[in-house]
């Protein structure tokens, strides 16, 4: 972090993190008034992970995300309006209102969802990478998952298969120390995710997930190895969610001072300070950025509010490619 940072790049990273933060704060508000329903899992506190890792990906790469994926989607460049409209259930949503918060998709950005079965995205990512390997597309498939997913059999199976076939998968573990209310040390006998990955044949590295530049650098190293045909890599980003698991969660299982301690490492605040320290972020830049982000979020809400509902007659659409006659 001693090297000085490119101003545009730095401001770009910060803006993405701020956008995710404000977008989700607004989403939480809209949830309480019933505009958004179902499950809503906020990424607040973890922004540096999605924003940092996405820097290492090209438009040709694939992304497989979790149900806590607003940050992943926005960092991938999906339009805030189409994401917000999706959470409203509107026809203009990125999944036409069929998916909701947990199932954001954007095939034009190779964003393959929005998976709500913990660990369920990993095998799919392995398959996307297999297709690329067999077709000779030099792409990386980035697959996000939480620490909780590491306990699922799909984790060990998927890492093994990816390593066995040397497939271009970048496994991205968002280790926020909890799977719902179960702390890492209560769900893992051995809590070092990188060691698990290596035992499956996948080299790994852990990184401070609150430091966007560190995440970016580690992701670039890992993605480069993957892209260079060295087989899969795992990156474990150590992070923390500042909010409850979902809007239903009374958050009884974390000590208040643990949460407060982590909040002192807020990735947005930390990176703001870095940019300030490097003289990259001027006095008015932040205010201007907040204004532009606020406008973007407001526009997203406006788009969601004004967009039409899909007609109910289309209920059976997109179950199969061919229309179902009944």
């Amino acid at each position, binding site marked *: 972090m001693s090297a000085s940072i490119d101003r545009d790049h730095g401001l770009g990273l910060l803006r993405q993190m701020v956008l995710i933060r404000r977008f989700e704060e607004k989403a939480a508000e809209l949830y309480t008034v019933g505009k958004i329903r*179902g499950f809503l899992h906020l990424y607040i506190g973890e922004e540096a992970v999605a924003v940092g890792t996405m820097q290492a990906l090209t438009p040709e790469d694939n992304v497989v995300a979790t149900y806590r994926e607003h940050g992943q989607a926005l960092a991938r460049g999906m339009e805030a309006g189409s994401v917000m409209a999706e959470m409203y259930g509107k026809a203009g949503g990125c999944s036409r209102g069929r998916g909701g918060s947990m199932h954001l998709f954007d095939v034009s950005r190779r964003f393959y969802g929005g998976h709500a079965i913990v660990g369920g995205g990993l095998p799919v990512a392995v398959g996307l990478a297999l297709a690329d390997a067999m077709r000779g597309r030099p792409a990386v498939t980035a697959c996000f998952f939480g620490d909780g997913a590491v306990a699922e*059999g799909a984790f060990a199976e998927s890492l093994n298969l990816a390593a066995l076939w040397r497939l271009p998968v970048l496994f991205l573990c968002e280790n926020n120390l909890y799977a719902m209310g179960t702390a890492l040390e209560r769900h893992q006998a051995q809590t070092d995710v990188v060691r698990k990955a290596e035992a499956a044949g996948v080299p790994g590295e852990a990184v401070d997930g609150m430091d966007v530049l560190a995440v970016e650098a580690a992701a670039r190293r890992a993605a480069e190895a993957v892209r260079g045909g060295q087989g899969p890599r795992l990156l474990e980003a150590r992070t923390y969610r500042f909010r409850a698991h979902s809007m239903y969660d009374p958050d009884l299982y974390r000590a208040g001072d643990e949460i407060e301690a982590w909040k002192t490492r807020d990735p947005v605040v930390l990176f703001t300070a870095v940019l300030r320290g490097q003289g990259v972020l001027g006095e008015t830049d932040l205010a201007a950025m907040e204004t532009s982000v606020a406008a973007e979020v407001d526009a997203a809400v406006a788009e969601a509010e004004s967009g039409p509902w899909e007609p109910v007659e289309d*209920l*059976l659409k997109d179950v199969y490619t061919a229309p179902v006659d009944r």
Partner: protein
Amino acid sequence: MKKMTYREAARSALRQALAGDPRVFLMGEDVGRYGGAFAVSHGLLAEFGPERVRDTPLSENTFVGAGIGAALGGLRPIVEVMTVNFSLLSLDQVVNNAATLRHMSGGQLSVPLVVRMATGAGRQLAAQHSHSLEGWYAHVPGITVVAPGTADDARALLLAALREPDPVFVFEHAALYPMEGEVDDTAGPGEIGRAAVRRVGTDLSVITYGGSLPKALAAADLLAAEGITAEVVDLRTLRPLDTATILASVARTHRALVVDEGWRTGSLAAEVSARIMEGGFYDLDGPVQRLCSAEVPMPYARHMEDAALPQPATIAAAARAMLRRDG
């Protein structure tokens, strides 16, 4: 009799079971510190301690299998699989072990296991979180399947499950947890294998269970206002089905509408219809009809989800159409 929610009723059964039998313990994802994804087990960790209220890792296949093993080993496990959606990951242990061990061992083993899980849609949770697959479980010989549709049954059937020597699967409908009802929390366990006529009527039988029961009762209200009296049969136990109660109702009303939140093709409703075909054909004034969920991965948007599920209005409409058609 006390007024309590379906959630509280289930919790009261859990508490009673844990207090009354040292072999009983509860395990599953987030049953302890979190308090249960649906707050059913809220408070039980504090009351019974971490040995008997066990948070598990996200490993559905393994902790259901461990429940089987613990039952073989002399305990009385209650395994909570958070929802039926995740139970797909543990179906191998259910179908290939829980259901078979007694038989394959020539009767040497018993698996006195209770597995609870939330089922059903209606909360805008979309395609991966809205399944109603209890009909699949009802297909499997070697296990018993119950699906309480009232607060009282949420307690009584869970207690009954804990008396069975063989595996019992309890499907609690997620949308019913906040529903209040009269519960006799001093009563003993309910009776497995017995359906209940929840409302008497003469024009048709509406046969249903679980989350569709309140909807069927609401539909019966709508119909009553038009002078149509619907008998509402609550299956309660999905395996073994109480065919006698179903057929007796049909013999009285001569018409049956089966309402089931599962997808129509291959639904439990199909089984009920087939049984009426086989045992009540000559009693029928017209064909048994089914009202099930639309055959679609559940969409998120509210108007779409509402349209995909059976509703009081669509149940009433189906009943009306049957009466019109069959005369």
